């Protein structure tokens, strides 16, 4: 799924644009240690964690797109880090559950 497709699916806005960002599966969690432990390469991360450390985790597990729920504001340092590391951010008014449903065409992370 491309960034644009993710954005349209969750009726969101692109807060950090990385045009070539892709997602092949999805993972929803607000617990970054859980993301570290269970998310996989190429997953779009559905979360409400709008801070710098989310980018660090995504970079490590190989996530290229983050969907931040409830239209939480993206702090400037997070946006900067995302741009630097090539991680796209989409903000959506949806909840984590609703965003997960909206992206249900993506498979869960393969274990």
């Amino acid at each position, binding site marked *: 799924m491309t960034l644009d497709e993710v954005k349209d699916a969750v009726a969101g806005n692109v807060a950090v644009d990385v045009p070539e960002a892709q997602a092949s599966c999805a993972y929803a969690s*607000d*617990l*970054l*240690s*859980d*993301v*570290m*432990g269970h998310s996989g*390469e190429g997953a779009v991360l559905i*979360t409400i*964690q709008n*801070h*710098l*450390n*989310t*980018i*660090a*985790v995504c*970079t*490590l*597990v*190989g996530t290229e797109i983050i969907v931040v729920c409830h239209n939480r504001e993206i702090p400037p*340092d997070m946006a900067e880090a995302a741009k630097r*590391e090539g991680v796209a951010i989409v903000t959506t008014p949806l909840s984590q559950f609703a965003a997960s449903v909206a992206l249900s065409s993506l498979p869960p992370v393969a274990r």
Partner: protein
Amino acid sequence: MEGYKPVILQGQQTNDDEILEKSPPIDASALGGDSSVIIMELLQRFKVRDVMKRKVLSVPRKASLREAQRIMRESRISGLPISEEGRLYGIVSVNDIILALDGGWIEESCEDHMATNLVVLEAGMPLSFALRYFNNYSYGRFPVLDSNRQLVGVISQRDVMRALLYELSVEIRKLERKTAAITGEGEPAHNVNYFRREYAVVRNDLSSAGHAANEIKKLLKEHKVDRVVARRIAVAAYELEINICIHSHGGILTLVIQDDAVTITAKDRGPGIADIEWACRDGTSTANDWIRSLGFGAGMGLSNSKRVSDEFEIKSEVGKYTRVTCVFRLNKQAEGAAQ
């Protein structure tokens, strides 16, 4: 009422070391006289511009004190520079606002009530100057000007402290490495492909956490370590880095790459773990609410690191240290790729 938007000024990196030549020599007694050599050296080596905040909020002279108050409240700052096109005219402090509210001139312009007799620092000054200024004046922060007298930043005591603590941890790390080399823990000479890198991790500095793990991931890529293995190593490195950051008094994360294995070691300076078995169990944690609100401290760090490692060892002495070692075996394929 006109809504002044604060002008956000982004300081430029300019080389204005010539200021130094006009400056009086350092007075060691101003620093307490007995500061250690390392701190003295750091204070000399670092310039104000290395430490100051480059993002400065300011308003023009015609802005009302009420506007200044609003911006200070919203941005949670206690002093607002009054500047136009980079030229600094004055500062409005919380105290000026209180006086204005009390005296009934809050709608008047900043120009008429700002402090104009300012103490400023210059960007090229050594940090020791800043420290002396903080000692000599009761101000919490100083505006910073470049050699063209343009406002380029603001420096607070906190900025100085943070920079010093960070650099000190780096210096300590170097010393520890030196000690390790003397006591024979250094690099074995027989192993040709031996690579070692250390990272200082500062307590509670969550904004920098992940930095070491990211560097490690890049280094593993450079060393052509298999992607899947590299990802496991990066996960362990990140978890251990976060652990040092949120649970310890600070410590060192070490990466060692050898022919057949990669080792990540996290050693901290305490407080140590009383019940290691309990700490390694999934879901157990001593983290506080702040850490938890950021998505950490769910008690998965040690168990995550253990799960991704081929060998896992944890040693701890209460009140002294905790040392976690994760070893990752490199398979034949990765070995071949590395050669």
